[in-house]
């Protein structure tokens, strides 16, 4: 059963090998100027040609999107839950449809609630 997933593992290894060849070739073929001759400004982060205003730029940045991210987690989980149902739909009879309607209504109500609450607006 799990043996059929083995090629996926090999594919990952293959991708790593492919990358190793590409990046390694670049490393081999690319010029390597002497550090002493290279101006330090070459290694500055790019900020449109002037020195960066703050040195450390790995920081929290407010994307104002926290609520939407939470919404995504909910909806994504529910979407994944629906997949097995979709596969077995034909065997579930009328019950399957009723179940879907109930499930979707709860989803849609949630979406409408979030929408009306302004969770989808960019503050």
């Amino acid at each position, binding site marked *: 059963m799990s043996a059929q997933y083995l090629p996926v593992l090999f594919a990952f290894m293959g991708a790593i090998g492919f990358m190793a060849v590409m990046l390694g070739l670049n490393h081999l073929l690319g010029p390597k100027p002497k550090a002493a001759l290279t101006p330090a400004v070459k290694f500055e982060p790019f*900020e*449109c040609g*002037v020195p960066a205003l703050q040195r450390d730029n790995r920081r929290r940045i407010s994307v104002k999107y926290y609520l939407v991210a939470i919404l995504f987690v909910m909806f994504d989980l529910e979407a994944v839950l629906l997949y097995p149902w979709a596969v077995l739909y034909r065997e579930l009879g009328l019950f399957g449809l009723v179940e879907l309607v109930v499930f979707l209504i709860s989803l849609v109500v949630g979406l409408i609630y979030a929408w009306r609450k302004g969770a989808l607006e960019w503050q």
Partner: protein
Amino acid sequence: MSTESATLKAYAAHPRTPEYAPLRFGTLTPALEQAPEDGTYYLNMGPQHPSMHGVLRLLLRLDGEKVVECEPVIGYSHRAHEKMAERGIFAQFLPNPSRMDYLGGMIYNVGYCQAVERAFSIEVPERAVVLRTLCCELNRISSHLLWFGTFLLDLGAFTPFLLAFQDREKILDILDSASGSRLTYCYANFGGLALDVPEDFAERTRQYIKEQRAAFHTYHELVTGNVIFRQRCEGVGIITQDTILSYGMTGPNARASGIAYDVRKAEPYGFYPEVEFDVPTRDEGDCLARYFVRFEEMEQSLRIVEQCLDRLPEGPVGPKKPLVRVKPKPGEYYHCVESPRGQFGMFIVADKDPEPWRIKARTPSFSNLSAMAEMLEGTMVADTIAILGSIDIVMPEIDR
């Protein structure tokens, strides 16, 4: 000619008395040393940035994607044009104005010549007047076409840029055949033009007008009706009439907010009093309004060009010998023309010397850029680019 121009009259006639807004330059720079503590951060946009239209540097304080504060930093292409004027005789300054605004070079060149001619009462033959007007309008179309292309490029659409450049190329060819240069013209002389136009000039221009009208149709089909384009422009970067008046904005940007001020109508010069054209205005004042106003202006310019071609008289285009040394009369003189970006004024102070004592250029983009800083606050990074593109600034004209 007095310095109290019709501009001032038009502004004074407006019902509101605006408070003059403080300029935004230098407001953020002192605060840069320490990082803000409220989670915002500073970002340099420019001078080396794909959509800064030359070398503008926008210093932004951002809260995530939102602009909290903005300060334009200018001066990266300062070349001391005004100082150059003082170092030579009037004729030696002739090539300079078209280098200030390289997109409206013909208009700047003609504007300077007209200022000197009006100041020192130099006669210009009728044919030269008509040809100057014609070339200026062609130049205006080419500038607006470039604006159209780069504005759409700022919004992320690449194709209109190349389409616009293909059409602009035709104008450049026509102006090249007349003046010998493609971008920074030095076509007008004191008292006329340097050269007469070639024989096939009228024919080529008429052909171009026909092609351009067809091309406008293509632009509208590709861009104007596009949903994404509408969403990016509608209601974005609204400039109120108060802002316009307090910063002294002119040109298409003012007309897109409902201020029907156009130097060509308010203080007619050259052949403009003789031709028929409308001054298109919009009331919304957003990016879309500026887009429409510029488009309608291009159509009006085509009308003017057609009328000039129909009524082009025969005769000389200038004095037999180039008028190198003008005889200055001491005094202060101001003359303004309508550049593609607004009112371009030349303020000349002359004494008895053959060199000007002082030349001051009033360029429209400086006012437009100052007002932009106010508009940007509270918008998103993507809107910043859209608004900057819609304002149509030319940096060398601000820095001079």
